[in-house]
């Protein structure tokens, strides 16, 4: 199954949000679920990043890369990064992959690599 991560576009004013929120941050005028889901672009620029060394127990790696990416449509997302030597502002492209396995489920999210 092809997995996607969606942005939420307000049906009243067109503002795009990620993650989901019940009320539009811009106009606060939308009704219940008056958002259109819009697939997010996968390409963007790396705004900031870190490598975490002391991880919560469920992550079975020694060092986990995380970053905030500004996607081509201007929306920002947080995701994992698999980049050896990241640089601020570099072009990246994301894939939807398993980012966490816990007792119940595989959790899917963005994993970004150098474009």
């Amino acid at each position: 199954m092809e997995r996607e991560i969606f942005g939420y576009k307000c049906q009243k004013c067109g503002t795009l949000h990620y993650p989901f929120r019940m009320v539009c941050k811009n106009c606060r005028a939308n009704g219940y679920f008056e958002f259109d889901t819009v697939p997010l672009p996968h390409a963007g620029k790396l705004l900031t990043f870190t490598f975490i060394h002391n991880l919560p127990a469920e992550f079975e790696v020694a060092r986990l890369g995380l970053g905030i990416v500004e996607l081509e449509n201007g929306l920002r997302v947080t995701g994992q990064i698999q980049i050896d030597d990241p640089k601020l502002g570099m072009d990246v492209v994301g894939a939807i992959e398993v980012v966490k396995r816990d007792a119940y489920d595989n959790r899917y999210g963005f994993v970004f690599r150098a474009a």
Partner: protein
Amino acid sequence: MREVYIIGIGITTFTRLEYPLSEIAAYASMGALKDAGLTDVDYLVVANMGSARINSQSALASAVADTLSLTPAGAVRVENGPASGASAIKEGFMAVASGMHDTVLVAGAERMREVNSLEATDFVATLTHPMAEYIYGVTLPGHAAMFTRLYMEKYGVTERHLAMVGVKNQNNAMLNKDAHLHQPISLEGILDSPEAMTNNPWVAEPIRFFDCCPVSDGGAALILASKEVAEASGRPMIRISGIGQATDTLAVHEREEPTDLMAVRRAAEQAYAMAGIKPKDIDVAELHDAFTILEIVESEEVGFFEKGKGHIALEKGETEIGGKMPINPSGGLKGKGHPVGATGVAQVHEIVMQLRGDAGERQVKGAKNGLACNFGGFGNNVIVSTYTREG
């Protein structure tokens, strides 16, 4: 609104404590009651973040009221992430200011060392956005690290500045018998010497072990009272002069300007407006330095220094106990420790000590106005409050 005073303070040592959470809260509370010369109160507000998850105890306030034999006084627990402590103070303030109660015990307590440090980190990380952050492995050190990198790039903050905050606060903690860390550190030991990188490993690049507060157990408590009760108590008159609170987006990536902490700025503006004072009137401050970068940024957002210039003031020694704007004389979260639910209350415990002139070797001379910033989430729920000594 009625005026509200703090007439009693109490605290436990911040360390690993081998007694139950309710007793940690109660021990600090007994100190505060004794200090105020009271044996009962009208109402209790108990701040705690994790009891149900990490200590298998919910409804903590009922247990605290009972163990202190304060029943049948009303009691409520406040959970508001790392800002639980100041949120409880705000609840207590409103209870007295409204005229509903004359005396309120505000206690904060956390027992985090009951679980290992990975579980403690994961527990705190549950305050992040569940779908857009938490599932990726985002932790609070992770947020702090991504924020630090932006601040370094934009304003020229370096690893050395971060280390200077840690050295200052850990050395201040040497003067505080209740502080968690009684280990003097130097720039040589954590940054410059050949062993420094072994002593001070990465936690989340670019932040290191000595940029992070320890995981602590501890409790702190205050007695809030109406003016009439405060005057009758004969205790020094320390008034809660201003309280402001603001929220921000849960997901950090949604913030318009990623190097701003707007909730800190807005909460501070509200507190100053309520108190009728300006940042330059503040003599001593306790800021929420869970990570060293936060002391620098908060010192700017509460208006002590221009945006992007906090690290310059730090370099000049202005934030030391003898400096122009002393910050975290208690040792801060970095040196004193960070039992999450207790922290906001403990910050005000220190401010009251300072305004009473009871802070001993770490006393800021002649302090009349104090400020505390209790930073919840990664800046998504922040309370700034000000305190004034009368007479």
